[in-house]
């Protein structure tokens, strides 16, 4: 096994190799650090690299294994953490200037769980400032660039994690998702990312953007890698008031079951409106692939979608401005222009709008429950467009101009509003060679079913195995 082949392997493959003593954690970590060194200048995926700490941890994992201690499938596997999760002894700035010198004394619950599971923390990945945006064009730490085309964005807000996994400078990365921030960069970068059910993964120690919308989850190279990470990350945490005290399944338990007879909801409204033609084509082909595997397509219609993004916006603006209430008054110049504007606008939104947003959310939750009662999953594009150019804020689809922010929120934010689990995974490439993402949405706490469908699709196609030439 040479160093070149290590950094593009999946966590599942590396885990097996470590267990069989074919490769050590130190070798994997060195290979990854070398890859970061070679690629980070071009893509700016990392804002901090903890090389010495990672090698020390990797050595400890190798020694533990030699002594007969095996911590599980993440034993010795490198993990890259979005700079929104607190990491003990490693700067956590949230992509902002205000927290530029913030070195936490404790790990976020998810990071602590991963370390206990044997993971080796490699570094912190770039984020849109305070996770408040889709582009990861960070005014303080630089823009993250897409490994498939470095003139384009990696998406966001977890853009550093998306770019790192795509470029082979991360095996496993962590992201957060308030309006699509795991799924958008996963789609743009051609990787696999899960926004779990709201409450499934603890947000303790994750800098908040909007407490009723924030989710934490993994960004990796396959559905089976998602399962490996979720088996360690997921579970009730009394320190997160939104955490759900529900049984945690083995997320890998359904991966190898076939999907014959599984019912796929294909939305008639909203989710297939104003989609880039190449994205639409790729998603339609993906649906045919799933049908070919025995899944049954059923048309579904989601109610109240005309108000869904507006309701999300009302909640997001009010909650984010509440969180940043002090700093936006005392240190406004320390924010980048776009985030500063959102926060200032959020201050001016009337309380009644926020409440109306929450009331509409309830209707959405009930409407989605009724609509999805007759299906097992829902299939949509992960994003309406492929990765856009750096600096591009308006996109034309079917001759109609629309703000990128609204285009991306349109498809992804309804599942932050309803809290449903949603997986983004690659399902094609455009003529320009840009990844296209598929979204698979499940019932509350049915991540295992979502991963089953994702895994079946991966086994039938090779989109998850495509790599950018960087």
């Amino acid at each position, binding site marked *: 096994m040479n160093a070149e082949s290590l950094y593009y392997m999946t966590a599942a493959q590396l885990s097996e190799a470590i267990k069989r003593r074919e490769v050590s954690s130190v070798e994997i970590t060195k290979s990854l650090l070398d890859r970061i060194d070679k690629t980070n200048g071009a893509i700016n995926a990392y804002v901090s690299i903890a090389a010495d700490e990672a090698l020390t941890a990797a050595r400890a994992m190798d020694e533990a294994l030699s002594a007969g201690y095996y911590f599980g499938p993440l034993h010795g596997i490198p993990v890259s953490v979005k700079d929104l999760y607190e990491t003990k002894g490693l700067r956590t700035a949230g992509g902002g200037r205000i927290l530029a010198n913030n070195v936490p004394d404790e790990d976020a619950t998810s990071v602590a769980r991963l370390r206990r599971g044997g993971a080796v923390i490699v570094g912190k990945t770039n984020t849109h400032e305070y996770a408040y945006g889709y582009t990861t064009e960070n005014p303080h730490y630089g823009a993250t660039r897409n490994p498939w085309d470095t003139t384009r964005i990696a998406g966001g807000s977890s853009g550093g994690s998306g770019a790192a996994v795509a470029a082979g400078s991360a095996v496993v990365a962590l992201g957060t998702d308030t309006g699509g921030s795991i799924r958008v960069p996963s789609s743009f970068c051609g990787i696999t990312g899960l926004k779990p059910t709201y409450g499934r993964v603890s947000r303790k120690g994750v800098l908040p953007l909007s407490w009723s919308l924030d989710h934490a989850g993994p960004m990796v190279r396959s559905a089976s890698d998602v399962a490996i990470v979720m088996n360690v990350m997921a579970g009730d945490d009394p320190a997160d008031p939104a955490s759900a005290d529900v049984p945690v399944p083995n997320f890998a338990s359904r991966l190898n079951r076939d999907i014959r007879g599984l019912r796929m909801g294909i939305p008639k409204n909203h989710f297939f409106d104003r989609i880039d033609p190449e994205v639409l084509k790729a998603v339609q082909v993906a649906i045919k692939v799933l049908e070919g595997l025995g899944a049954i397509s059923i048309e579904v219609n989601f109610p109240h979608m005309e*108000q869904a993004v*507006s309701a999300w916006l009302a909640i997001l603006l009010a909650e984010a401005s509440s969180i940043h209430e002090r700093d936006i008054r005392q240190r406004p110049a320390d924010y980048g222009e776009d985030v500063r504007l959102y926060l200032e606008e959020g*201050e*001016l939104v009337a309380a009644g709008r926020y409440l109306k947003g929450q009331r509409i959310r309830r209707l959405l*939750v009930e409407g989605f429950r009724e609509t999805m009662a007759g299906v097992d999953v829902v299939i949509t594009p992960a994003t309406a467009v492929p990765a856009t150019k750096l600096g591009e804020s308006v996109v034309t689809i079917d001759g109609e101009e629309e703000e990128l922010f609204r285009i991306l929120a349109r498809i992804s934010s309804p599942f932050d509003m*309803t809290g449903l689990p949603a997986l983004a995974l690659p399902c094609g490439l455009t003529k320009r060679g840009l990844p296209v993402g598929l979204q698979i949405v499940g019932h*509350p706490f049915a991540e295992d079913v979502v991963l089953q469908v994702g895994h079946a699709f991966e086994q039938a196609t090779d989109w998850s195995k495509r790599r950018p030439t960087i």
Partner: protein
Amino acid sequence: MVPVVSADLVEKLANLVRLPLSPHRISVIAQAFGQLLDDLNKLDEIDLGPTEPAVIFQQVRGTKGGVEKR
């Protein structure tokens, strides 16, 4: 047609919530705020049903994300 919001209105709203803004910031917000208000006005296009406290309480209790257990 996106409504135009005056700088004067933005300044008054900012004063109400004690948000200190320079004339430049007021101008920047005024340019963007019309689009936002337009978005938020879409919330009025839906009938949310009765306004009895019990109904509203039921509707807004979903601040835990609204997800029900399986």
